[in-house]
């Protein structure tokens, strides 16, 4: 009785140590040194509680904690902003799955997949921007921390995704590979633009303290045109150094950029680039820029001097920026297969034992090594939700990049990750609807998962039940359809809504339950003398055939209608057939025969002689079965006996009248 649910927040972090695969979660209020902890797995959550176990040596048992703790595995699905990510990406995911039918040619297909990948990334970006916007409005510090943490995770996710897009999906060849990598670095190091804006809007840009920082950053990112423009401002300020600036400008202008769409071959470009590189080198050798340290620095960068680049650690900020800049000025025609060598070397050079590589570094490195599975594996460990790996893996699978790999468990990597992600969604009170489409696209185990999960969706209203039912019906999940209808029928029955209960059991084609409810209707009729829920019973139609009892209920009501409409002959025939065709349960015959009484007592003859015989036969069949009680006739039996007497009398009289009438007619 003292149990109470308690949500403990889940602080997830990117594990600092790659070898550490276990995340530790402290549950507030439980002293694990004093007490032992028990737990139970849930579909997404974990229930943790204190056990009665007393460790040996403990003199006084510590105050026991009366709570059962609910520990959430994946807290992110409860973030209102990340929900938008889940919803928007669901739409993209479904679109991608339906691609097969729409896009015939391979080239188009590739274009489409790239387009999808970009869509995913723009959703991540939108989400990130909103998180940043919201974080600045939020007052409690704790929330702000949470937002910042989420933003940093999304940033990392987008960075990895973008690199995977360049390397695996676009699969750019030598030449254009570097161009893509440059775009990648520019996109994720956008603070230069902010600073540049600040410098250019100041009164005298050339005097601004950040002027040279911006210029160097432009050069490091290979944004040559922008660098030239900003250098012009300085040149106009220093007429004395005009020649030096002009030389730098011509060097920058001459820098060859590979154009993948052009006629130039990669070899031609390489020759041209080498010539330019030599020219830069020459300028450096003959001290053309010696008078101007900033320009000399730029020139050193242009020749790709490693030490100079490493001195720009502040401006590069990451080893992968260093890598791309180094490639730009040393190996612009780098081939995809050579990447991993430069990447590893750049990382070692840049970190230089100053700090251990973080998970993000190893993930990026694995990507540069084209080890897709390592990327996915590391991401699964480092990130606290399945969203990223599930969607990325699915996308890569659509590029046919994961075919060779099979797991020792489950079906394949894509399906395994999708199932994990969707199962997480299904534990959410609201996002479960999204999970259905993910299960649909898991050919091997999706259906089983869906079947198990869908039965656990709480059905608070009929509207929700209808939605769940629609999901099941569309997938021909007969078992689940039956169970949902049964739950709803039972609920209606408990609330004394017989009509609703019957509707649900008709929908489920549940004959046994329909029989049960029909019995209740007949009971109600016997006690009250009137039918309830006529609007339903009168319009059963073919649904009546679901169960014998239901057929009887419908027909019996039809009899009442005919009687009320004074169609006595029809009514009589129906009444008799209910008994002779054995539609009516034996227990109900007495009621039917009693119903026949007023028909027998009518002035005109309704039951023919043959029909009367049959009625008599029914009455006899009913009474002969019973052993006549010899002693102590109860009140009930007394009434019964009187009823039978009355019936016999009426039947005899009717028979006489019928014989006379029929005889007269024939004559």
């Amino acid at each position, binding site marked *: 009785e003292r149990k109470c649910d308690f949500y403990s927040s889940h602080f997830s972090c990117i594990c600092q140590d790659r070898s550490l695969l276990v995340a530790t979660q402290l549950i507030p209020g439980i002293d694990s040194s004093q007490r032992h902890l028990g737990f139970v797995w849930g579909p997404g959550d974990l229930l943790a509680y204190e056990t009665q176990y007393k460790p040996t040596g403990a003199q006084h048992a510590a105050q026991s904690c009366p709570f059962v703790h609910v520990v959430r595995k994946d807290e992110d699905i409860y973030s*209102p*902003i990340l*929900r*938008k990510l889940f*919803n*928007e990406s*669901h*739409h993209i995911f*479904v*679109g991608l799955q339906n691609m097969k039918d729409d896009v015939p040619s391979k080239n188009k297909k590739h274009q489409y997949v790239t387009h999808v990948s970009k869509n995913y990334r723009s959703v991540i970006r939108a989400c990130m921007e909103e998180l940043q916007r919201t974080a600045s409005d939020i007052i409690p510090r704790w929330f702000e921390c949470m937002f910042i943490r989420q933003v940093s995770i999304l940033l990392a996710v987008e960075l990895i995704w973008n690199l995977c897009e360049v390397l695996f999906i676009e699969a750019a060849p030598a030449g254009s590979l570097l161009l893509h990598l440059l775009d990648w670095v520019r996109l994720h190091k956008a603070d230069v633009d902010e600073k540049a804006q600040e410098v250019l809007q100041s009164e005298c840009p050339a005097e601004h303290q950040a002027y040279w920082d911006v210029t160097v950053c432009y050069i490091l990112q290979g944004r040559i045109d922008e660098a030239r423009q900003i250098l012009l401002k300085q040149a106009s300020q220093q007429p004395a150094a005009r020649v030096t600036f002009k030389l730098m400008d011509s060097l920058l202008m001459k820098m060859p950029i590979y154009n993948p769409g052009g006629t130039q071959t990669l070899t031609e470009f390489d020759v041209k680039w080498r010539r330019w590189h030599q020219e830069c080198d020459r300028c450096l050798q003959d001290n053309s820029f010696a008078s101007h340290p900033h320009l000399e620095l730029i020139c050193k960068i242009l020749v790709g001097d490693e030490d100079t680049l490493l001195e720009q650690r502040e401006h590069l900020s990451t080893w992968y920026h260093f890598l791309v800049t180094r490639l730009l000025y040393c190996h612009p025609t780098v081939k995809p297969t050579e990447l991993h060598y430069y990447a590893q070397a750049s990382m070692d050079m840049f970190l230089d034992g100053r700090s251990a590589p973080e998970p993000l570094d190893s993930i990026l490195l694995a990507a540069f090594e084209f080890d897709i599975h390592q990327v996915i594996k590391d991401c699964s460990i480092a990130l606290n939700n399945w969203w990223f790996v599930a969607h990325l893996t699915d996308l890569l699978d659509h590029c046919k990049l994961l075919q060779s790999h099979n797991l020792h468990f489950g079906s394949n990597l894509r399906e395994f990750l999708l199932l994990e992600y969707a199962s997480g969604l299904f534990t959410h*009170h*609201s996002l479960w*609807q*999204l999970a259905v*489409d993910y299960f649909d696209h898991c050919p091997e185990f999706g259906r089983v998962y869906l079947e198990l999960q869908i039965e656990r969706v709480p059905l*608070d*209203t*009929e*509207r*929700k039940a*209808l*939605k769940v039912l*629609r999901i099941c019906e*569309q997938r021909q999940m007969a078992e689940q359809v039956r169970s949902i209808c049964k739950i709803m029928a039972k609920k209606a029955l408990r*609330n*004394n*809504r*017989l*009509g*609703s209960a019957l*509707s649900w059991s*008709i929908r489920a084609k549940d004959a046994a339950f329909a029989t049960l409810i029909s019995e209740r209707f007949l009971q109600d009729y016997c006690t009250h003398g009137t039918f*309830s*829920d*006529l*609007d*339903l019973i009168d*319009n*059963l*139609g*073919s*649904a009546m055939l679901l169960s014998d009892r239901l057929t009887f209920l419908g027909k019996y009501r039809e009899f009442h209608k005919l009687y009320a409409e004074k169609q006595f002959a029809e009514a009589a025939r129906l009444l008799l057939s209910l008994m002779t065709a054995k539609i009516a349960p034996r227990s109900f015959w007495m009621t039917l025969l009693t119903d026949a009484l007023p028909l027998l007592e009518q002035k005109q003859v309704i039951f023919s002689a043959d029909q009367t015989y049959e009625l008599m036969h029914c009455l006899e069949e009913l009474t002969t079965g019973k052993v006549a009680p010899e002693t102590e006739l109860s009140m009930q039996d007394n009434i019964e006996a009187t009823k039978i007497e009355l019936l016999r009398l009426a039947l005899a009289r009717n028979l006489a009248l019928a014989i006379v009438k029929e005889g007269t007619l024939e004559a």
Partner: protein
Amino acid sequence: MDYINAKFVSQKISKTRWRPVSSSSLQQPDIFATGSWDNEENKLSLWSVGELGLSSMEEDMEGDPQLLCDIRHKGDVLDLSFLDQERIVTASSTGAVTIFRHHPNSQTLSVSQLWDRAHHYPCDSAPCTGVVCNSPEIVTVGEDGRIILFRVDHKSILRTIENADSSTIHAVTFLRTTEVLTVNSIGQLKLWDFRQQGNDPVQILYLTGDRVPLHSVDRHPNQQHIVATGGQDGMLCIWDVRHGSIPFSLMEAHSAEMWEVHFHPSNPDHLFTCSEDGSLLHWESCTNSDAPSFLQGGRNASVISRGGVPQAIGNQSLTSSWLSGDSSKGHLETTHMLPSQTLSVNSLDVLGQCLVCGTDGEAIYVNRHVPV
């Protein structure tokens, strides 16, 4: 589709309604209300799409709905309706009927009147599935089969029709001041008159044989005998409540539950439907039966004419295009209004040139240039 604006709102939307605009002005509506469902904490929210939004909006933000205010709502919002400019009535899955008041000065919402457990079973509460307002009167229906008549500012319930239906009543609408129409889960359309005592409907209309549940109902704004309903199988039915008890025409519209159907309030040749299958359809019925082209846009909107409904209507010019007798003469154009999406469109509302709809995909779509 070009003008459609999507906004993700982090809650599954069960209802969307425009705030009414005064009929005299030609103004377009700029504020709408939404209700959410299936959340741990559900909300009633007010949004603005007008130029008078909260923040100074940039060019590309124009038309993007901005949240004005929201308030916690106990239970799912199963239906909502504007009583007047400032008051909103909601139907809750807890059986409660609540009137909320919007305070435009402080941009807040507050509860102004609450009938707790208005709909209930003997020992439990029953979801209230529909509400309709005709100020000062409010009519609600529920899973308990009751029809309840309230009056604003009256604490007590004005009238209850117990056992109005043996199954769940899914929706309700006013036909005339004292008459309401209800649809239920066994495919019946019932007409009720509050002037009559007793618990029996004036009329029951239904499709013979079928017992397909009906989920939505709307009345033609000018010709009140014309009624449209939407069913579980996605069929659109047009009924003439003056004649006969079976529908006038049946049209295949959606592949799953049709959650709502609405005639355009000022241009009733246009009709809008939305469905569990994730589509929103715009139907246009052309009165000009002389037009030679037999236009059927969009998808297979096959029109099935029900035989045996011979209606000799004297004045042809007064005939509504929806009851143009021979369906092969009149023509019907349908267009999809949403980009392809898979999750249910639960609600829509249309007023003037503006349309708003809400989905289980947690998005609100606003189109401010509906071609009507």
